[in-house]
Each structure stands twice: as structure tokens, then as C-alpha cells.
């Protein structure tokens, strides 16, 4: 291996009481593809943000190309040849690709956009990107936006690229294309750091893996010597069983019937188009699709939070008396008053499922605070429930009145899932239930969902990790552009097939 292009020595960063990086010392070598592996909250992004000038270390030194540097802002980072593509894109929607590439660069004589476009085409040819420099960002797909972000940092002369969770938003096919580009960049002598928590990607693309755990640097290993089990153990700190249970479906009963569901979003775009499916008690129905293809609206329609088009029907079959209830057109409160046991773990945990400024206890009564005739809220029951969940799910919090916003992502999700399950649902809908969670918490969630399934609940699991969907779910519904492009058996579905159905509907490419 050649010389270290970046050396970090004793780099420490804390936010309040939280130590995000604890005395990290590591090297990045010239011309390598390095995976930075760690669970959510292990400090990967924070560490890289100190290289890209977003944060400044509390102490420790950074050496780039043999010289000690102080990277105070992204401009300093570019001066060192470091460019970072963040998980959340930083693009101007109404600008074209070329305009976005040069925005923020100061130059006295202005820019010749045509020359910039030429330059962009050259970069595309060199590394195998596909990008029209004139295209506006609002016309771009997520993967195109990502491509643009990468072009942007290359245009600005970065030799060391840091990609933060680049595959989180991509389909399997798009991921393959991205990896081809990354390999081309390596051939060109560039150094690439990929932040990730997906093991199979680490093994597929990188030369070396550096592992962080709870802010501390654990070790780096050559990818060819690594296995999934070994990496997981280093990442979590203990041996973890990586198999997800899938109990056999018993006693399947129709609980929810969705027919011809269509709706528009607030921008007037049709986001659901004639969606029909059944959900059964005793099974887990997975919903796959590229993020933003109608998953959110689908669940919110069932929950009574979405305006739908005429002709749509959503019927609920009560487990108590078998009666059918039409849910469309009802508010969440009316749905509850009908005796419908519907639980919903929304994607936006603190922006929809919970009140961030309130403690666990007050969050417990969010859905049933209005029960009873007293004008005062009953604080005893929610308190007891909060203590129960705290104990059962091992929520880590200073106390049940600590604002849930201050808890870590995994603990926030435990609070939310705990409350929704405590309502003893007949239908349990979850959206991206394990997004951002560490491995142990993710497995806790899978276990809870399986328990609900075995108890006869109809579980709907909207997910993004296809491997998990294929391991956990009994059936997988694939959404593409707001339409159902197919429903597959989870036990026999193949990943490539799901990936294809996510981007094509009835053989046609979805734009």
C-alpha cells in the first residue's frame, strides 16, 4: 500500500455530553477505496465532516499530504483536495446541473456556462457518468442528483472523495452503476471513502474497511480478509445472530382490503394510482419501492390522513365481530371511535409519531388523551405505560419525563413502536421501522413485528433494505410510480426481480 494521504491523530469531537469521536487515529491511503463502517451513531459522519470542514475538532490533528492542516470550512477542505457528498443533497432545485456545479465558486470574470458544460461532459466520459449539464435539478431522479453531487466535487478538483451513505437511496441496479463509477475513479488515482453500514456493499466495493464503534476507532482490515460475521462483531462489539426469524403463517384472516386507491399529493401530482391489495392477520406484508413512490401516502390513506380520489375503498374487517368498516373519509379520531384497532408507526418519528419536546409519559397519551369526560388529562395511565415500555424494551433515557427529542434514534423508535403495540392493534403499519437504528435495536424491532404476526395481527412493513424484506416478509408488494407493479412471495422472490419491478411498471421504465 502506498503512503497515507490523510492521517488523523487523536481527533476528538463532542456535542454537549455526547462524545461523537473519541481520540480517533487512522490513515487513509492514496488511491484506495476505503469503507468507513459503523452502526448509526458511531460517529462516521461526524469524523468525515471534520475532514470536509463542516465541524472543527475539539482537539487532535489532521495531516493531509504530509502537512498538518486546519480545515475550518469546506473551502479549506477543497484546498486540501477533499470533497464530500452528503447524505442530504445540497442542490438548488431551479438551477441546471452546470449552474449547480459552479454555484458558490468565486471568480472575477464570471463563468462561461458552455465551457462548464463541456467540462462536465468530459468528467462524465472519463468516469462513466450519464448527465445532461442543461437538465434542471427539479427534473432529476434521486440517483441523478447524487451523480450531480459527485460531479460537483470532482469539478472543484477533489482528489479525495467522501461519499456519505451513497446507496441508501438507490435501487440495486443504480448501486451497481455507482460502484462502476467509483472503480473508475480509483483507476484514475482518486481516493474514495464510502461511509456505510451495509456489509455486503463493503465487501463488494472496498479495498479496506475501517470500523468505528461508539465514536471510537476499532481497527481496519483488508476487505479480502473480512467476512460479514467478523465485521459485524467488530461493529457491534459482540457476536450477533444475523438471521431474521420468519415463523410460518398460521390462521390467515382478512383484516384490510384496499381497492383502487388513488390520490394526489399537496403539489397536485398523482402519487397513488389504482392500488389494490389485501392484508391478512397472521402475516407480514412487505412494501418495497424506491423512496417516494407512494409508500407514505398509502399508509397515510389507511390512517385517515390523506385525501383520496373517488372510487377508492379501504375496508377493515374487525377481529371481534367480523364486521366490515369503510375507513376512507374518516378522521383518525373517528376511526378510533369506531373501534378499529389500527396502529401506525410513521416514517417521521419526531415530526408525526411523537412530540419531541414531551417526555415518554406525555407521548404515551398522544392518541387517547381525549378519552373520558374530564377536562383534565389523566397522567397516571400513560405514566404506568411509559414505565412498562421503558422496562420491556430497555429504553435508554434519563427519565420518562426527559423530552424524547433528546433520546437516540433507536430509543425514540422503541418508544413509538412500544406505544403502537401497546394499543393492541389488529392492523399494524410501519414505515421504515429500522431506518437509522443500530443492529441490535433493528433485531428487536423484527422480533416485535414477528410477535405481533404470531398474535394474529396484520403487519404491513414498508422497508428499503431488500435483503431484510426478503427475510422478514411473507409477501412483498412492489410499488413503482404509485402503482403496484406486483406482489411476490417473500420466500421465493429474488432481489434482482424486486429491483426491476421497483423501476418498471408493466415492462415500462418509470420516469
Amino acid at each position: 500500500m502506498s503512503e497515507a494521504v490523510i492521517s488523523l491523530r487523536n481527533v476528538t469531537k463532542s456535542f454537549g455530553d455526547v462524545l461523537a469521536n473519541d481520540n480517533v487515529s487512522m490513515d487513509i491511503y492514496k488511491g484506495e477505496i476505503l469503507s468507513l463502517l459503523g452502526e448509526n451513531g458511531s460517529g462516521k459522519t461526524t469524523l468525515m465532516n471534520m475532514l470536509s470542514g463542516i465541524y472543527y475538532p475539539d482537539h487532535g490533528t489532521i495531516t493531509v499530504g504530509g502537512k498538518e492542516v486546519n480545515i475550518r470550512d469546506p473551502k479549506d477542505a477543497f484546498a486540501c483536495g477533499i470533497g464530500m457528498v452528503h447524505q442530504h443533497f445540497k442542490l438548488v432545485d431551479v438551477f441546471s446541473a452546470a449552474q449547480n456545479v459552479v454555484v458558490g465558486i468565486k471568480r472575477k470574470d464570471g463563468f462561461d456556462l458552455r465551457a462548464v458544460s463541456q467540462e462536465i461532459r468530459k468528467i462524465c466520459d472519463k468516469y462513466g457518468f450519464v448527465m445532461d449539464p442543461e437538465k434542471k435539478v427539479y427534473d432529476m431522479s434521486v440517483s441523478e442528483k447524487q451523480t450531480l453531487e459527485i460531479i460537483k466535487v470532482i469539478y472543484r478538483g477533489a482528489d479525495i472523495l467522501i461519499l456519505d451513505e451513497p446507496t441508501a437511496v438507490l435501487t440495486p441496479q443504480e448501486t451497481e452503476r455507482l460502484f462502476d463509477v467509483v472503480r473508475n475513479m480509483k483507476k484514475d488515482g482518486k481516493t474514495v471513502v464510502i461511509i456505510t453500514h451495509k456489509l455486503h456493499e463493503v465487501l463488494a466495493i472496498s479495498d479496506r474497511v475501517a470500523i468505528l464503534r461508539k465514536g471510537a476507532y476499532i481497527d481496519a482490515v483488508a476487505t479480502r480478509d473480512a467476512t460479514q460475521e467478523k465485521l459485524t462483531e467488530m461493529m457491534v462489539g459482540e457476536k450477533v445472530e444475523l438471521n431474521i426469524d420468519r415463523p410460518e403463517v398460521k390462521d390467515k384472516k382478512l383484516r384490510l382490503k384496499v381497492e383502487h386507491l388513488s390520490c394526489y399529493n399537496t403539489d397536485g401530482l398523482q402519487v397513488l394510482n389504482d392500488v389494490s391489495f389485501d392484508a391478512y392477520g397472521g402475516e407480514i406484508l412487505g412494501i418495497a419501492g424506491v423512496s417516494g413512490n407512494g409508500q407514505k401516502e398509502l399508509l397515510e390513506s389507511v390512517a385517515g390522513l390523506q385525501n383520496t380520489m373517488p372510487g377508492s375503498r379501504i375496508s377493515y374487517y374487525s377481529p371481534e365481530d367480523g364486521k366490515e368498516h369503510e375507513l376512507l373519509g374518516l378522521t383518525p379520531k373517528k376511526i378510533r371511535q369506531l373501534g378499529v384497532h389500527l396502529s401506525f408507526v410513521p416514517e417521521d418519528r419526531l415530526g408525526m409519531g411523537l412530540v419531541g419536546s414531551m417526555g415518554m409519559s406525555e407521548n404515551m397519551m398522544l392518541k387517547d388523551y381525549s378519552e373520558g369526560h374530564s377536562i383534565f388529562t389523566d397522567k397516571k395511565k400513560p405514566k404506568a405505560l411509559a414505565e412498562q415500555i421503558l422496562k420491556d424494551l430497555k429504553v435508554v433515557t434519563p427519565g420518562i419525563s426527559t423530552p424524547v427529542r433528546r433520546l437516540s434514534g433507536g430509543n425514540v423508535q422503541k418508544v413509538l413502536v412500544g406505544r403502537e403495540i401497546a394499543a393492541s392493534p389488529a392492523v399494524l403499519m410501519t414505515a421504515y421501522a429500522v431506518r437509522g437504528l443500530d443492529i441490535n435495536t433493528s433485531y428487536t424491532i423484527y422480533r416485535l413485528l414477528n410477535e405481533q404476526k404470531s398474535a394474529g395481527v396484520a403487519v404491513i412493513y414498508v422497508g428499503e433494505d431488500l435483503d431484510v424484506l426478503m427475510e422478514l416478509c411473507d409477501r412483498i408488494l412492489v410499488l413503482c410510480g404509485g402503482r403496484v407493479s406486483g406482489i411476490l412471495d417473500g420466500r421465493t422472490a429474488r432481489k434482482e426481480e424486486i429491483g426491476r419491478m421497483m423501476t418498471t411498471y408493466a415492462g415500462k421504465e418509470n420516469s
Partner: protein
Amino acid sequence: MAGAVKKEPFVRLAKRDGMPGFKKITIRLLSLIIALIVCGLLIFAITKLNPLEVYSTMITGAFGTKTRIWSTIKEMTMLACIAIGLAPAFKMRFWNIGAEGQVLIGGIVTAGCMIYLKALPPVALFAVMLVGSMIAGALWGLLPAVFKAKWNTNETLFTLMMNYVAIQLTSFFVAKWENPYGSNTVGIINQKTQEGWFPAVMESRYFISVVLVLLLAVLMFVYLKFTKHGYEISVVGESENTARYAGISVGWVIIRTMLLSGALCGLAGFMAVAGASHTISTSTAGGRGFTAIIVAWLAKFDSATMLLISLLLAFLQSGAGEIASKCKLNSYASEMITGIILFFILGSEFFINYRLIFRGAKEKGEG
């Protein structure tokens, strides 16, 4: 590779992760003391007066005699009443900048009752004024709330503009009720007979206002903290999506809360007219509708703290008036002092939330 060897930044900010309560109070007190020192230096630099004398003049100005104490308390009750009215709206993150107008409308109705209904028995007149002023204020708050709930209009602009409508209406009624003719003021209403005036209790006409405001403070505390309505207000203020998810009718909560907020501001107008000035003019609200916003936010909507901050501001105002006349400073000087003190109190919040790290500082993670 251009090795950018630059110096470490001179000063950096880091967010604190919460702070023990006593430390927060210490910082706030400290900021008050620093503010007084800065004011003192400024006073000395400009006027060569002894700052301590100026301060003691302020204290005599605010609390020197019984009349002055009551006058300070009157000012405090007005501010506190409006702040208590604003608290539920702001807790719901509804930017009610319209207290000024809501107070005026309440005041107009009160004055109207005093003029036209003075034949009623005192208790009945009192009740009519109380209810009437609250309804008027509530309606003034209702309009922007309905527009917000139905069409999501911007309530900041809407409530602000409603103030100007209220001011114009007040001008109209001042012209209509002009007394004596040609004075362009309403004069003291019912000066001889005192119909509709708050009676004096404990030797003061302001006593009833004080009791009313204290009662409101307690009720508002309970309302926000322990009732279902209060819970709904908190949820809507935090996130409308969460509120919808919980099955709360967001529009209705907005309307209901603004009715309450407007009603309490209208009540402040009632107190200002029937309980204090016994007249109505465009300056009846006198900017208190805006000052009360500061009171509500500084107190984070806590009733007891709102009372304390109202007292501080009322003290500054009465005291400042006194130094203006005693020390031959004009009223701007006193406003400067108020401004400096508020600046430091608000600024202290920054140090409660953040800490500064200077270049070369070796320490890590101070409490």
C-alpha cells in the same frame, strides 16, 4: 495539493446539552448585574451623574410612595394580563402580534358600555363590560384564526394588520364620543358619577385588577399544564402533522385558542379603561401588546415568571420616568436603560444554550 495551513479559528461555538437550573438562574442574575454596570458606566460617561444615585431615584420612582407602588402594580397587571392572554397562542406557535388591537377593541366596548349603559345597576354594568370586552377581543382574534385554519394564511401579517384597523376604529369612536366638543379626546368618562369604574378596595382602584390577573395567572397555568386543551395546544405547537396523526382537529384548536387569547387581551382593554384610565384613546394599549410578547417568550409561557417579568418591566418604566424628570434626562435616556437591560437578559439565553471555545483552549467538555 495546496496544503492550506491556516490558524485554528479564534472562537468557536458549541451547543450545550442542558444546564442545571441553579446555574441558569445564576447566569440570568449575572446578566442583570452586568447590564446595570454597563448602564451605570454609560450614565456616568454621558451625564457625569452618579449611577447609584440614578438607580436609587429609579427605585423611589417606582416604589417611593403608595401611589407610585400602585401605579407600578397597575402597569404590571396590564402587561401580565396581555402576556397571559398571548401565552396559549404562542405556545401553539401562532404568532399573535395583534394583542394591541385586541386590547383596543376590548377598550372600545368597555368605553361604549360606560357611556351608553350607565343606567344599569353597577353589578350588571360590570358584567356587561366584562363579557362584552372579552367577546370583542375574541372576535378580533377569531378572524385571523379562521383564515389560518381554513386557508393557511400568514397569521403574523394578519394579526398585525388587524391592529391598524383597531386603531382606526378607536379614532372613529374618539371623534364620536368627543367630550368636551373640539378637544379630540373622550375625556374622563362618567367623571362625576363614576359609573362603570372599578370600585376602590384596600384603598386602591387597582386592587380588583390585581386579583383578576392573579386569578388568570393561576387558571392559565392549570389550563396549559393539566387540561386536554392545554395538551392539544402543546401538540399543535410542536408539529401539526403529529397533531393530525393523533386525531386532533388542528383548525378547531387554532380557532378555539385564538378565541381565548383574544378574549383575555380584550379583558386587558376592559381593565385599562374601566379599571385605570377611565377614558379611551389610540394610545390606550400604548405598545403593551408588543411588550407583552417579550414577557410571554422570556417566561417561556410560565405564569409565575410572566408576573415577575411584568413587574421588572413595569418597575423599569416607572423608575425611568422618574429619572427623566429628577435627573433632567429626557425620556430617551430611560428607554436606553430599559433597552440595555433587556438586551442583556435576552443575550444571557445565548450563553445558556451555547458555550464559546477560544483558540488554544485545552479544556474539553465543561459542564
